[in-house]
């Protein structure tokens, strides 16, 4: 059985023969070395263009994924359930035995904020999602997402990598692997974590696992002194004098060229030389890309950054959440604009106390209020900004979380985990705005049509489809199995496509 797809790669294939193939395909030495370095060899047939080896013509070129760590409540943000308002306080009755993570099966509990219709589509959004009302006609909601586990770690991995176990590449790694970079001076896949820390599973949500390591998400902390690890000499920098960087680069190039010349036929030696040249270029490109201060005042204002950082209150608050999330959204836009292929933006960190994520077991209002307002403001600005720059049409936006929250109360003010149904939404990149695909039941407890829920595989398949990739033909052999982002599942959600 041979798979001739250009996307089918296996670690079993000898590296050299692959290079030979590329050699014959017409690249020059430098270009080839660079390609293998960047993982862009798949697109070599027409460098810089996506259509080179794609399965079909793409609708989108890049992806941004917003991930709400801790499980954001569909009921309090997007999925309007009048029945819950009507039955608020009545004993909950699911009509079946329910296993909730912390047995949070108290009375039915209404959403904590009122809902109002927005846009031409009249989509109901809660007051803390109100800023998204400005762009709601661009968004396509999926209200019948189902997960597999109510445990944060496994569920987060499922949404980020398509598997419940650690050890699988993140969706961004697959996209980076398939499409390579549009800008050699920046990483192809960037992760903007919550400034307070990583979500469940840490870097396992975006590391490349069995894919080559250059496809790992590169962590960027915008507006910190060291936004990219090791971009510049950090501790011990005292040993370097002014001008030492170009001098070192020149010395390395010279000695490495001599070394490579005496060992012909090994492309890796040349590739490594190029990696140092590229590193020097990245040192220039990355700070420029992350210079949020250079944005015009009206743009800063759009994202809610005009007042700059403040001495924030100790308790979680909307002003701070708006500022920190807005910074990440603006950084995401700047990176995408400069050719980064996939940006993953996180809201919330892992499960500690006091809560700084969406896992509102104790108090939905306290956590979801500020987090949602900050998130909505930032993403609404992001979408408007992409549109005015002409980037919206070929950028796919995915909003996701690991699962939803229960329609019943936990301890009066909180909600327990609900892996049985939750919400995703997409926008841009050929997605049909103003639509809803799939409903939850009258409680927001399970899908309305339980036999036909939507799963993460379908969402991933759809995103790959928009990028010009058949998800069943993007695979990599590892430990004897042709692994895919979508495992053995996934259907493109044609109902979402424009």
């Amino acid at each position: 059985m041979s798979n001739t797809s250009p996307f089918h790669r296996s670690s079993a294939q000898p590296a050299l023969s692959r290079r030979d193939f590329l050699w014959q395909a017409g690249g020059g030495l430098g270009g080839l070395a660079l390609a293998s370095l960047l993982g862009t060899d798949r697109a070599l047939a027409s460098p810089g263009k996506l259509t080179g080896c794609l399965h079909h013509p793409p609708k989108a070129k890049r992806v941004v994924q917003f991930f709400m760590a801790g499980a954001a409540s569909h009921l309090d943000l997007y999925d309007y359930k009048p029945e819950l308002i009507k039955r608020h306080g009545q004993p909950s009755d699911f009509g079946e035995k329910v296993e909730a993570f912390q047995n949070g099966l108290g009375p039915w509990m209404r959403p904590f904020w009122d809902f109002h219709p927005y846009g031409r589509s009249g989509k109901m959004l809660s007051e803390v999602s109100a800023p998204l009302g400005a762009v709601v006609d661009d968004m396509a909601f999926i209200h019948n997402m189902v997960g597999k586990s109510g445990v944060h770690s496994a569920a987060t991995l499922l949404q980020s990598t398509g598997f419940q176990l650690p050890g699988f590449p993140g969706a961004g790694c697959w996209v980076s692997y398939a499409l390579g970079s549009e800008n050699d001076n920046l990483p192809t896949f960037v992760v903007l974590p919550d400034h307070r820390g990583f979500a469940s599973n840490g870097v396992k949500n975006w590391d490349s696992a069995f894919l080559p390591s250059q496809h790992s998400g590169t962590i960027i902390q915008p507006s910190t002194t060291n936004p990219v690890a090791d971009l510049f000499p950090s501790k011990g920098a005292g040993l370097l004098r002014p001008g030492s960087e170009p001098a070192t680069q020149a010395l390395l190039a010279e000695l490495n060229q001599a070394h490579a010349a005496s060992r012909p036929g090994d492309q890796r030696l040349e590739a490594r030389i190029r990696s140092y040249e590229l590193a020097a270029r990245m040192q220039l490109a990355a700070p420029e890309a992350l210079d949020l201060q250079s944005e015009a005042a009206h743009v800063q204002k759009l994202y809610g950054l005009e007042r700059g950082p403040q001495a924030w209150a100790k308790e979680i608050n909307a002003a701070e959440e708006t500022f920190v999330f807005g910074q990440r959204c603006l950084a995401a836009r700047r990176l995408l604009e400069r050719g980064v292929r996939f940006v993953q933006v996180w809201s919330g960190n892992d499960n500690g106390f006091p809560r700084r994520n969406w896992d509102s077991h104790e108090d939905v209002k306290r956590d979801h209020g500020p987090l949602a307002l900050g998130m909505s403001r930032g993403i609404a600005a992001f979408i408007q900004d992409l549109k005015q720059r002409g980037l919206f049409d070929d950028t796919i936006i995915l909003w996701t979380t690991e699962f939803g929250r229960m329609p019943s109360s936990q301890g009066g003010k909180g909600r327990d985990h609900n892996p049985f149904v939750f919400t995703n939404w997409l926008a841009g990149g050929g997605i049909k705005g103003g639509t809803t695909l799939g409903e939850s039941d009258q409680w927001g407890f399970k899908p309305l049509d339980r036999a036909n829920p939507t799963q993460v595989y379908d969402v991933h398949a759809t995103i790959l489809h928009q990028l010009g990739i058949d998800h069943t033909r993007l695979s990599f052999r590892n430990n004897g199995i042709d692994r895919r982002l979508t495992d053995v599942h996934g259907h493109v959600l044609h109902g979402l496509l424009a």
Partner: protein
Amino acid sequence: MARPRLTLNAYAAFAAWALCCSLAVAAPVDFLREVRPIFEAKCFKCHGPEKQKSGFRLDASQVALHGGEAHAPNIVPGQPDRSPLLRFVSGVDREMRMPPKGDLLTVSEQATLRAWIAEGAVWPATADVVLANPLDWWSWRPLPSPQPAVDGSAKIDSFVRAKLAERGLQPAAPAPSATLVRRVTVDLTGLPPTPEETAAFLADSSPLAYERLVDRLLASPRYGERWARHWLDVVHYGDTHGYDKDKPREHAWAYRDYVIRALNADKPYARFVQEQVAGDTLFPGTRDGIEAMGFLAAGPWDLIGHAEVPESKVDGKLTRHLDRDDMLANTLGTFTSLTVHCAQCHNHKFDPITQEDYYSLQAVFAALDRTDRPYYLDDATNAKATKLVRQQKDLSAQIRQTEATLGAQAGEAYTALTRRIEGISKTAAAKAGNPTPDFGYHAQVSQQAQTVKWVQVDLGQRVELARVVLSPCYDDFNGIGAGFGFPVRFKVEVSDDPEFRQGVQLLWRGHDQRFMADLPNPGLTPYVVPIEPEDVITGRYVRVTAVQLAPRKGDFIFALAELEVRTADGRNVAQGRPVQALDSIEASPRWRKVNLTDGLAPVRPSPDELAQLQAERDRLLLAAASPAVAETLRARRTELAQLTKEVAALPKPSLVYAAGIHTGSGTFAGTGAQGGRPRPIFLLARGQVTQPQREVGPGALAALGFAPARFVLPAGAGEGERRAALAQWLTHRDNPLFWRSAVNRIWQYHFGQGLVETANDFGRNGAVPTHPELLDWLAGDFREHGGSWKRLHRQILLSATYRQSSDDNPAASRLDGGNTLLWRQQRRKLEAEVLRDAVLQASGRLDLTMGGPGWRDFVVERPEHSPHYRYDLADPADPQTFRRSIYRFVVRSQTQPWMTSLDCADPSMRVDKRNESLSALQALALLNNGFMLTQSTVLAERVVRERGEVKAQVARAYELVLGRPPSAATLERLVVFTREQGLPATCRALFNLNEFAFVD
């Protein structure tokens, strides 16, 4: 529900009629003309020559009549009613109708199939597809006995040269000595040779010089450190759990040290493996037998899935299922290079591994959890401790039995005393329970445990809190006694708002154990809610909200004796303050809200009182015994006391994080309370924990017929016997996979690629060997010689194949670009650990201390919840990090970013072969990371110490990093650079050279 039943009845009646008809006319069904067309039209799309969903196909009798996964066999010749196929095509089962979409088979088609099966499902050979024997695959074939060879290295060369000759290729010239010494030293020790070692080798003109070098390196303790790293990649070893709340495993390192020790001692491979699967059972009382069990626990583990979700819930079942899956995938993957875990949802698609095999393997590990296991470093103490503890257990049981017998005869006074001592009697209540009749605060009774109740105290003003103390109640109601009404789950909050609508601060320390998990009843011990000074908790109202109440008698309650709020100076500012509650039972004087802050709470009896009561009770007990029985009891007690003293006198045991029987509480109980009895394991339809089919016993892979694959164990055999049986099966002399897998891995690390390129997959989806005869000869020879790794290394390293140059040969490259035929050696990039260790060796700071807890190059923040491992906050000049990389503390959720950029193995994955990548981020990591900059300075300082003037210093730095002196021109260039940029910048550049990063 009515319609399906009607359909069924109608169908059954019709089928019976059809059957009668076909029998009546006595014309047997013609498979070719009548049956096969039905299969072709309705079934082949999914179960035919092209596609075999669930591995089932109706074009080949071998599968059609025997396969069918959970339903196998789908067709039972002669027994239509026991043939699931007929049920599926009838459509009665909505979940399992066939075909799943579109029209069902017509009634007459169904009748034809029924008749055909009733007649014996005759399948003519002319209409059959004969499938390849799944066992007819290179890795599953028996291993031939090797032809003995005088010179194993020459034997290797002869196999390799024969293959080269077939393609008209020649081996490369021997590598120069300077290249060879660097290559073999890195290969065996993970460190480049020092300039002095290189010089000594180059100066040795003896023909035995190389052989002596190999022997010296094999004998070096550095050998075990180097090869243990390879092993730990394969078994996915880590020092933290991974997943959410990635807690450290403080004792995992003992397994890592075991591996190093075993490899240095050249432990026979079969024994090495037996210890890792069942060391505690096969080699009881030995240190290695316990430490090796770290293997099964090496991989990631989901703390939340175990500690917060009980096994009774679906998510809890799934967590444990995945836990066993990790153990068995690790075991079979490591030792047999098979992807057995692919068979959890269906029979393996490519290899003869059934779902039954898979769940039999799960049954082998069914009693286990991952836990810290105590043991002693010396085997004598281990044996002694095991014996003492067993004796202690036996004797205690005997004494308990005698006491129970006597107690039953000792009368009411004895019983009353016992109850009093155990704190459940009325007398005890009077004496040791409530000092006064005012018990405390008691909420209204609820019918459901998950009911929210709160009670709060008004401190009268805003106060900064130091801690909150909750004292439990005492009430004999329903024999409950101490801890009456103490909530199972609750939270404590502070606010200035009496309604707790705004400005609410959660007392979050310990919140996990009291709100996220069931809190064990504290008895009469006051429960302290701690607050650390940096938390700064201030407020006027302190509220306790119970979300899961305490059970009483078919109902649930919430009661507290006292709520104290202490300030930093120790004052209880709650005493006498008003109390509010959601509801309350006001039953003065015992139960009322004001009792919550009245300063009175029940207390335990003092130790003196307790001792007095116990002495009194014992007197009553012995009075009931005959003199002989009393004497025996006394003697046994004396003996037990002696044993207890001896046990207590044992040295503190060591711990290793390993697979074992866990005795826990709450949701993570383990099997300890059941004496380690294995959990029942069921074959799961589609791998779903919600769909258990039949229970399966322990076993291995049935298709491999060299030994029984369903383990028949004697009655009463402990769970360890299951693992022992698996260990014996794995390491069986005739297990062809076992020996082939091992030699292929070792070969791979010497050549950069295995004889089989997919070292973790010897199945049909993997690669085939490039040199099958060589692989088999090596495997057989390895087996015949005790599974000695060092002997195998020696054979390989002394071969001309290993010693040839890695230079390219354009002609050969055109024929065999991947060098699969080994016409040259492979230039290899230094792995992350080797590069790091080589930097430290060059700078002169490499600390060769062996073993012990891993060194840490991170700072842990927030260890109480999800620890944050902050590498950026560590000091790169911290000398404890100057040890070899094998001793690094390996974190799973936050892998060391610098090592990761250098393709370090991911401890969450079983890595048979590391990626070898090059990227700009890697270049930046090597240029700018604090470790590299620090060591560049250290190297500069070293050469300044060792040499007098700049030129000599630069030359020394060059040879320390690259192992050879620079050419005159290069030296001149470097001296110019050094004069401009300084010596540390030169050292930094040297560490970034291609020549340093690659081994020729």
